[in-house]
């Protein structure tokens, strides 16, 4: 049972960028938690996520609500992981997400879960749960996490907080 949270790094974007990478993540924790608040500079509303610089061998399953319906689908989390408020959404609103990665230093496939929502003062807004798995041919501890806008940039004032969680 996790009982300690340590902030590893935090970033508020001062300029728009297409991707954010947390590198050299220390292996001293049990789990990782990434909290993201992000808006896109274009009509893109997806942020991809991948580990250790590789977009391969990652898979996911999504359930999504839109306010008027629900659906489920397979996904490639390297492209479609976190919901971002697109530039067409209400001004100054951001999509939010929590990414939880248990046992990130293990030598087995890494599971992760993402709870993510958009914010929009309109009929359409999204909420989504994603169950993901990263299963590279050669297993390794996660030492970097990259978030990448599927197109365009992540806007100024998007925020990223990476926490390490220990079980003792």
């Amino acid at each position, binding site marked *: 049972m996790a009982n300690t949270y340590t902030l590893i*790094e935090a970033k508020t*974007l001062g300029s728009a960028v297409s991707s954010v990478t947390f*590198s050299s993540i220390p292996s001293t924790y049990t789990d990782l938690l990434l909290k993201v608040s992000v808006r896109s500079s274009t009509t893109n509303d997806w942020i991809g996520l991948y580990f250790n610089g590789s977009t391969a061998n990652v898979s996911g399953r999504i359930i999504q609500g839109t306010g008027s319906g629900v659906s489920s689908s397979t996904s490639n989390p390297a492209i479609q992981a976190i919901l971002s408020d697109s530039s067409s959404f209400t001004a100054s609103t951001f999509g939010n997400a929590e990414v939880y990665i248990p046992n990130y230093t293990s030598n087995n496939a890494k599971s992760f879960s993402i709870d993510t929502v958009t914010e929009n003062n309109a009929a359409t807004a999204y909420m989504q749960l994603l169950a993901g798995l990263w299963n590279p041919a050669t297993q390794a501890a996660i030492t970097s996490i990259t978030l990448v806008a599927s197109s365009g940039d992540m806007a100024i004032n998007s925020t990223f907080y*990476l926490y390490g969680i220990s079980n003792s």
Partner: protein
Amino acid sequence: MPTKLIINCETGEQTEVELTAEEIAQREADAKAYEAEKKAQEVIAASKAKAKEALLDKLGITAEEAELLLS
């Protein structure tokens, strides 16, 4: 030119650099692959919905009645 931000968690150093041509190409290829996969899933879903509708017609029952039968 799109840029990427790298945050080194050991040193706290933050660097912003332009994406390489390879990274831009990879990003575009990933986005295209995703679009293609999404379209393929939509085709499968539409095909399943059509087949389901045809079966219900054949059986002469509604979707609600079919749900009741399976409950």
